[in-house]
């Protein structure tokens, strides 16, 4: 056993927990742990809603011809699946983890702006109810893809303005959440918790928060222009009125590419926490990791047009965006090297968080490599809008972002609940997920290279075999995810009690608190000795 089952640990803090009870605890929540829990539950619900949409997509694509879905509804499903997963599942999951962990990791009693925190969360259920309700209005849900390119997006029905409003609400929620994270980190760190003593999860979130503040307004502007083009007679993106639909793509991807890093940078932070713990070694190259994260964030602003090489642009532009995209491989390579070097000659053990982190390391790298292929302009002309792109970004986002979230939950769940979860079942969850995520997405590389276009409900018969394999992988992956909430639920209900330091190799201020931590933690700042012990990098 690599975890510490200190049954004798005193839980005398319970007596000092003055927490509200009943529905008021959640509706009026200002405690960072409660709000973190609500974000995570919301993300979990969105994950299953978005996942069920993916199942419908894979069901339709199981064989050629139209089987179950109307083509318009199929397009709605691809669009809504993406919006649900990006804005409803991955982003709220990271915000939930930030809420739970950042105050505990920097020695702060709570987030700096607790009421704003409550507001940021409670916007989300309304935004997503609005978004999902578009499926029931005339014209159906948005069907122009999550990128919302005009003129296709402008052809939407009554659901179109509802989608735009929902996106505004999600954007405002994200910006307010990001402001809270920055203010907390910059102002509420315990004395002695210098910037270069902060855990990597806190660092990556700080940089992510700045990205959010910078790019979410761009998305808001872009979708507002769509709205005015549709309802108020402007022609920003309508060629007939002197506008340019390609301009939307530039604006959208100026938001969209940093958004990819908003989804993945906290994953880098989590993996940088997990790998040292289960290697029983300090993180190799801590400062290099911080600078690499900042470099990736900076580069994310100057690569956007690699998403749209085929719309046509000057050769100098193509070269600039190709080379700047390739540059991202350098700081990312630094990270992969440092994680590997951390494990080198470490005393490794393979508990579920480490398994998910290792899977992340291998499979995210595959997604990164296919990203490099897509950065090459002439090659991209062949891959553009094929299933190769779908395979690429799903490798980045599923075994990348989603596996890192699962790894993070398996890592910190014993801290949150005070109980160790069923590790055997979690290991099953890991293997089923890892095997079937590859069965699901790897064949899509072959389909893309063979020329199968994305976002179509029907396809030529030569693509049948790999689509069947992909769908079988999808169904198995989807089913195996039901293990996750079951494992969490079982752990919340009870289990072997764990000590403060649930994992023997763990370092950081959160592990100095009892498990579960008191409702109000670090009401007095931690000592310098505790901070130094935690900052073992």
């Amino acid at each position, binding site marked *: 056993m690599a975890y510490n089952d200190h049954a004798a640990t005193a839980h005398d*803090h319970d007596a000092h927990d003055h927490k509200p009870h009943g529905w008021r605890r959640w509706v009026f929540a200002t405690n960072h742990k409660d709000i973190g829990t609500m974000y995570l539950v919301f993300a979990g619900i969105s994950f299953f809603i978005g996942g069920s949409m993916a199942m419908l997509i894979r069901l339709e694509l199981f064989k050629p011809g139209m089987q179950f879905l109307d083509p318009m509804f199929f397009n709605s499903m691809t669009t809504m699946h993406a919006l649900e997963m990006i804005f409803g599942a991955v982003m709220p999951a990271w915000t939930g983890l930030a809420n739970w962990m950042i105050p505990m990791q920097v020695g702060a009693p709570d987030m700096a702006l607790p009421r704003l925190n409550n507001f940021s969360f409670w916007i989300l259920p309304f935004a997503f109810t609005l978004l999902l309700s578009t499926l029931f209005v005339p014209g159906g849900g948005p069907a122009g893809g999550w990128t919302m390119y005009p003129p296709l997006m402008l052809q939407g029905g009554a659901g179109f303005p509802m989608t735009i409003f929902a996106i505004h609400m999600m954007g405002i929620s994200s910006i307010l959440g990001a*402001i809270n994270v920055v203010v907390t980190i910059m102002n509420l760190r315990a004395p002695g918790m210098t910037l270069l003593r902060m855990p990597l999860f806190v660092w990556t979130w700080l940089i992510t928060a700045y990205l959010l503040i910078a790019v*979410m*307004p*761009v998305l*808001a502007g872009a979708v507002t222009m769509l709205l005015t083009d549709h309802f108020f007679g402007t022609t920003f993106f309508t060629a007939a009125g002197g506008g340019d639909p390609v301009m939307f793509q530039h604006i959208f991807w100026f938001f969209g590419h940093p958004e990819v890093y908003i989804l993945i940078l906290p994953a880098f932070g989590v993996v940088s926490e997990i790998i040292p713990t289960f290697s029983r070694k300090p993180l190799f190259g801590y400062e290099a990791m911080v600078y690499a994260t900042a470099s990736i964030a900076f580069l994310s602003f100057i690569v956007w047009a690699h998403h749209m090489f085929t719309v046509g642009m000057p050769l100098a532009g193509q070269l600039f965006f190709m080379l700047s995209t390739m540059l991202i491989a350098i700081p990312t390579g630094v990270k992969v090297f440092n994680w590997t070097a951390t494990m080198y000659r470490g005393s490794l053990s393979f508990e579920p968080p480490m398994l998910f982190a290792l899977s992340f390391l291998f499979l995210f790298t595959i997604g990164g490599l296919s990203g490099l292929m897509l950065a090459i302009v002439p090659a991209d002309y062949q891959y553009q809008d094929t299933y190769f792109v779908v395979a690429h970004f799903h490798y980045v986002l599923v075994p990348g972002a989603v596996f890192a979230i699962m790894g993070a939950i398996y890592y910190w769940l014993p801290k949150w609940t005070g109980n160790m979860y069923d590790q055997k079942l979690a290991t099953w969850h890991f293997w089923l997920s890892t095997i079937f995520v590859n069965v699901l997405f790897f064949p899509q590389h072959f389909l893309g290279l063979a020329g199968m276009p994305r976002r179509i409900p029907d396809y030529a018969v030569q693509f049948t075999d790999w689509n069947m394999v992909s769908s079988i992988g999808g169904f198995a992956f989807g089913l195996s995810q039901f293990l996750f909430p079951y494992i969490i639920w079982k752990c919340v209900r009870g289990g072997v009690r764990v000590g403060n330091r649930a994992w023997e190799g763990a370092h950081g201020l959160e592990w100095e*608190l009892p498990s579960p931590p008191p409702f109000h933690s670090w009401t*007095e700042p931690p000592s310098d*000795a505790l901070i130094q012990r935690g900052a073992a990098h």
Partner: protein
Amino acid sequence: MAGNGTSTAPDAGQRQRGVRRTALLLGIVAAVFYVGFIAMMVWRATR
């Protein structure tokens, strides 16, 4: 026990001012970005 430490807590008022200052600054930056981008777009449309 949780929360016990030997560090001296920073002045609460000073910390509160820092929180307000940073929150205000970021709020203004975000609002200027958010509203400014849309206002710029409306202005361009009416030219």
